[in-house]
């Protein structure tokens, strides 16, 4: 379930952890980096690798919003839905995305290209409305800009 590469990456992270528990989030981040999301089987594999139970790993995993326990598309669009972006009309961005991709919050396009997820304030309030695609921040958005942007993600 876990490739040797992932295992050695986790091992490297674990080596500085004073407790086994402390390695959970790091390990999950590594697995997610490689696979995009974390399936039940991978939770099990991580648990086994760290000498923990699935309950111990998943209890932590399900707390955090940036650990994806369901499949996501190749590209994840995080749409800031917090107050400054709300004032500046993030809902229009969301409508636009629905028009362009046919999906809303929590959904993935049938071709597995995009997922759209809500995110708490991206810390880019001066550029509201803002979104983040695969870790890149885009601010001062409007529908034209959005349309062009999406073209960069295959």
């Amino acid at each position, binding site marked *: 379930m876990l490739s040797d590469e992932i295992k050695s990456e986790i091992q490297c992270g674990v080596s500085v952890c004073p407790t086994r528990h402390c390695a959970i989030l790091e390990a999950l981040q590594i697995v997610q980096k490689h696979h995009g999301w974390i399936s039940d089987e991978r939770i099990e594999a991580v648990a086994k690798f760290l000498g923990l139970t699935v309950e111990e790993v998943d209890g932590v995993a399900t707390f955090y919003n940036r650990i994806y326990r369901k499949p996501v598309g190749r590209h994840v669009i*995080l749409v800031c*839905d*917090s107050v400054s972006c*709300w*004032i*500046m009309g993030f809902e229009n961005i969301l409508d636009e995305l629905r028009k362009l991709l046919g999906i809303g919050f929590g959904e993935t396009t049938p071709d597995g290209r995009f997922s759209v997820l809500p995110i708490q304030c991206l810390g880019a*309030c001066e550029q509201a409305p803002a979104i983040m695609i695969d870790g890149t921040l885009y601010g001062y958005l409007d529908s034209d800009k959005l349309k062009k942007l999406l073209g960069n993600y295959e």
Partner: protein
Amino acid sequence: MEKPLTQHFVIGGEPLDLAGYEKVGGYEACRKSLKSLTRDDIMKLVKDSNLRGRGGAGFPTGLKWSSMPSSQNSPRPRYLIADADEMEPGAFKDRILMEGNPHQLIEGLIICAYTVDAEIGFIFIRSEYTKAAARINKAIREAYEKGYLGFNILGTGFNLDLKLHISSGRYICGEGTALTNSIEGHRAIPRHKAPRQTESGLWGMPTLLNNVETLCNIPHVVNNGAEWFRGLSKCKDGGTKIFGVSGKVRNPGCWELPMGTTIREILEEHAGGMRDGLKFRGTLPGGASTDFLVEQHLDTPMDYDSVQKAGSRFGTGTMIILDNQTCPVGMVHNLESFFSRESCGWCTPCREGLPWTAKILAAIEDGKGEPRDIDTLDFLVRSLGPGRTFCALAPGAMEPLRSALKFFREDFDAHIKEKRCPWR
């Protein structure tokens, strides 16, 4: 006007690298601290500077540092954490500082670690701050290479390891004790404040936590002295502050200004005033979890005490502006939905009360409000207040609602009476 924190970089531009930072005097304070100042000297400097924590609560930094137990017989390792989680809606100041001058933060951390005798440091950063994280990582590498971090720093015998910890997401992780749980790989549930983290924090060891902006001030205090630092400010709290403005203003952004600059000045001179055709209706002066201030408060100086006197909290010093064509009920609904989603689920009033609050607000906004809902909201504001919940999240969440009910009551009533949102 001096702008020690931001003077050497352009917001949104390229960061200062190590050479650039050193060229403008970077790591001088570090050298000075480690080589020629005692721990007590620095502690005194920080105390005298009247620097207060920039993370939201405004706790005097010197006082917090001195609550670290003495090094003798102390359990080890001792930890220092920079809180770079910045998820308070409306806040983006720490990002600017980290993206623009990551070494400034690292230098602050080194001096702080030296002063409180910590040997392991963490920068706890939210995962969406990818650019800042990359820059910090690079800066950490550079600092290690140059001997500012690691073993026997600058030949002084002082050691410090620094690690960037990338969060897996959740607003509550920014709360100092929840953050500790998160680093330990647990669910980010806040901890009880006895014992204090400085006595028993990360893995049960003495742990000091400061906000990014707080720490960025430290090199300047060491370089220029406490008196200079106090002199930067227009009030008794020392230093400058990164103030931010978002919402429908002409020029949203952030600026380093003296502590105690008035809201009006920030809004009108720096943010360029309201966009054409819009009027100022209110502001959350210190981020999402602070009370609304309105027109009558525009001349309030932005410092901890004055904002409190005006009926709100200084918080992060980043204001969100409500204009006269945006629905206050909708805005509060957005805020409460946020807080309700970010409740950690540990204590009853927050876990259950916030979703209920959000549902009531949604109903009102949708024209399905009932007159008794206002009473229920009042009741919720009381029941989620300080002391009632385990941590400060829920009381913070109630602040904008409480003040909205006070200042924008007619808007709530209009929604309920007209059975629709008058702005839609």
